[in-house]
C-alpha cells in the first residue's frame, strides 16, 4: 500500500462512519452518552479534510496516519478522540518514512495501534471497549499473514474478526469509559467503539482489495 492507498483508507473510513453515524450514536445512547457517531464523524471528516487539502505533511503512509492521529485527537471531542488518535499516531510511527507498506509492516503498525491504545486507556480485553474488536482483528491479521496471505487477504481477515469481536461485546459488562457507570445495564448491547473499529477495519479491507468508491 502506498501513500495514496492510506489516504483512500482514511477517506473510506470517513464515508463509512458518516454513513453509520446514527447507528453508532444509538449504540452509545444505550450504554453511554449518545455521541459516539457525532464525535467520530466530526473527527474523521476533519482528518479526511486535512489530508485532502494537504494542509499537513502527508507525503508518506506514516505521515498520513500521524496526521490522522493529530486530527482525531484534536477534533473528536469524546474519549474516542484520544483513543483512536493515539492508535493512528502509533501506527504512523511504526511505519516510519517508508513509501510503500507491505503486509508485514502493516501488521506491526496494527500491533502498535493496539498497544498504544491499551497503554493510554488501560482497558483489558473483555472490558467492552473497541479493543475487543481491534484485538481479534490484529490476531486474525497476523494469522493470515503467517499463512502467506497478502494485504487483501489479511485485511479482510482482520475486518471479519473485528465484526465477530463486535458481536462478542454484546454479553460483556463495560469496565472502562463512560459506559462503565452503567454497570450491569451495559450487558446486551454492542459497544459503540467496537462498532466503529469494525467499520474502520472494513474500510481498510476495501481499500486493500481495490473495492473503494
Amino acid at each position, binding site marked *: 500500500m502506498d501513500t495514496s492507498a492510506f489516504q483512500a483508507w482514511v477517506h473510506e473510513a470517513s464515508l463509512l462512519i458518516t454513513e453509520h453515524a446514527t447507528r453508532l450514536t444509538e449504540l452509545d445512547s444505550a450504554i453511554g452518552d449518545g455521541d459516539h457517531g457525532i464525535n467520530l464523524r466530526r473527527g474523521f471528516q476533519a482528518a479526511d479534510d486535512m489530508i485532502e487539502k494537504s494542509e499537513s505533511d502527508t507525503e508518506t503512509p506514516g505521515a498520513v496516519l500521524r496526521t490522522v492521529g493529530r486530527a482525531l*485527537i*484534536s477534533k473528536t*471531542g469524546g474519549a474516542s*478522540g*484520544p483513543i483512536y488518535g493515539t492508535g493512528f499516531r502509533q501506527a504512523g510511527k511504526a511505519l516510519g518514512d517508508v513509501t510503500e507498506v507491505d503486509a508485514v509492516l502493516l501488521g506491526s503498525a496494527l500491533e502498535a495501534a493496539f498497544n498504544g491504545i491499551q497503554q493510554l486507556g488501560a482497558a483489558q480485553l473483555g472490558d467492552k471497549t473497541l479493543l475487543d474488536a481491534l484485538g481479534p482483528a490484529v490476531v486474525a491479521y497476523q494469522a493470515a499473514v503467517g499463512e502467506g496471505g497478502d494485504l487483501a487477504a489479511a485485511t479482510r481477515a482482520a475486518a471479519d474478526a473485528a465484526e465477530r469481536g463486535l458481536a462478542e461485546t454484546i454479553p460483556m459488562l463495560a469496565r472502562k469509559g463512560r459506559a462503565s457507570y452503567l454497570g450491569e445495564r451495559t450487558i446486551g448491547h454492542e459497544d459503540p467503539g467496537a462498532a466503529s473499529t469494525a467499520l474502520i477495519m472494513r474500510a481498510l479491507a476495501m481499500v486493500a482489495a481495490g473495492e473503494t468508491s
Partner: protein
Amino acid sequence: MTEGLGLVGIVLVSHSAALAEGAAELVQQISGGATVVPAGGTDDGGLGTSTARIEAAIDDAEAGSGVLIIPDLGSAVLSTRAVLADLAGETTARLVDAPFVEGAVAAAVAAGGGADLDAVAAAAEEARDAAKF
C-alpha cells in the same frame, strides 16, 4: 498571569464549559492568588473535551512552579494524557486523580499558600476523604 507568579497553577478539565468555568470562578475566590484556569467543553462549546483548550489552559496556568490538572470524568483523563504526550518534556503539568470541585478547592488553597506541585497534588488527593458535614 502575574497574579499567580511563582505559585502552582491549576487547570480544571471538564466535559462542560459551564462546569469548568463555574468551578474555576468559585475556587479563584479562595485561591489566594493562585491561577485557576478552566478547560471545559469541545472546541465549539458542546459537551466533551478539547485538547486545544486543555493545552491553552496549561499554558495560561503556568507561572513557573508547575501546573496541576484535575479532570472531571475518565475521558478527560484520556484527552489530557494525549496533550501531555505531545508536550512531553516541555511541561511540568501533572494529572491528579481527585474529586473535581473538592480537589480544586483544596489544591487552590494549597497553591495559594505557596505549596509546591507535590504538596498541591497531595492536597487535591486528600480532598477525597474530607467530610462536608
